[in-house]
């Protein structure tokens, strides 16, 4: 009992130190780091991505309603998933390409609840950043929400299910899901920019290579960081044997919304 307590205390302290270090290291510098900037998608594409995003948002609202109705205890876990996205998308981390970008934090919620609820939680974070921080924008919110809150979680969830079904360890599956959700977000962003701005020579493919070089490559080490942080918080959660966690685990094994 005492030993267990000490262990929990140690991991708690570690997490606090980790976040502190993280925030110290990532003292924000040059601005701009958020997906597609306001006004930087032609009107047609801005509308296109809004239209593509809205059905997923509606499904997401329904999924969240279903979860809170069937298991009201999980509201706390939903809050945790949203908060994790909130924290991680505020961390602008320097990367190997000499520029900074930030993780998305959508992997944790995706693993816990499936991809649909993340379309709501993720777009709430994006709305906050667009309105208060002038990062991203309202016209490009549809496109940014589609990449970060729909496509990323969908890709991460597919990887999670695949790995769990093939008998991988859960830690590895969670790591991969979070890293893939992060990376997929920025690959989709690159595609969105490439189709809107095809290069004069080489067209969409050439543009995709260029935008991918900016977003996706910067994102690789960040995706690894995000995967690791997601595993870390999952480990931390598991050291507490609460009702919420056992309900969640039962749901995670069973069929999903």
């Amino acid at each position: 009992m005492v030993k267990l307590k000490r262990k929990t205390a140690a991991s708690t302290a570690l997490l606090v130190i980790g976040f502190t270090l993280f925030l110290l290291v990532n003292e924000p510098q040059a601005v701009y780091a958020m997906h597609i900037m306001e006004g930087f998608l032609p009107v047609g594409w801005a509308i296109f991505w809004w239209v593509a995003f809205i059905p997923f948002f509606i499904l997401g609202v329904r999924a969240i309603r279903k979860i809170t109705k069937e298991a009201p205890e999980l509201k706390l876990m939903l809050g945790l998933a949203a908060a994790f996205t909130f924290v991680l998308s505020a961390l602008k981390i320097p990367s190997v390409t000499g520029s900074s970008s930030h993780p998305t934090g959508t992997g944790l919620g995706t693993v816990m609840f499936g991809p649909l609820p993340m379309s709501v939680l993720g777009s709430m974070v994006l709305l906050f950043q667009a309105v208060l921080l002038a990062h991203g924008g309202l016209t490009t919110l549809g496109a940014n929400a589609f990449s970060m809150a729909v496509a990323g979680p969908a890709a991460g969830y597919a990887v999670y299910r695949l790995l769990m079904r093939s008998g991988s360890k859960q830690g590895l599956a969670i790591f991969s899901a979070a890293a893939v959700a992060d990376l997929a977000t920025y690959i989709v962003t690159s595609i969105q920019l490439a189709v809107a701005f095809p290069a004069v020579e080489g067209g969409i493919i050439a543009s995709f290579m260029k935008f991918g070089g900016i977003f996706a490559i910067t994102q690789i080490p960040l995706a690894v960081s995000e995967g690791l942080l997601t595993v870390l918080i999952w480990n931390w959660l598991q050291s507490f044997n609460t009702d919420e966690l056992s309900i969640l685990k039962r749901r995670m094994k069973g069929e999903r919304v």
Partner: protein
Amino acid sequence: MSRSAKNIWILAIVVLLAVAPLIFINAEFGGADGAAEEMIQTIAPHYEPWASPLAEVPGETESMLFALQAAIGAGIIGYVIGLFKGKSEKTKQQ
């Protein structure tokens, strides 16, 4: 390897991933979407952004808002985890 030893390794790698570029790469570390903006201007020089952000906040204020965003999130995470910890200790005592 015990769970806390694993967690130490995880944290070490995360910190290393963030610090290493700062040490080994001599660059500005500006935002990736600033770079994308330049790229758009190279590919489509005549493109004019047709909307602008509601408010252009000064850099310093923006750092504050980013810190606020992280703080709100971290606060909620701390609250939830604290609640779970309390609950699990209570059930253990019973």
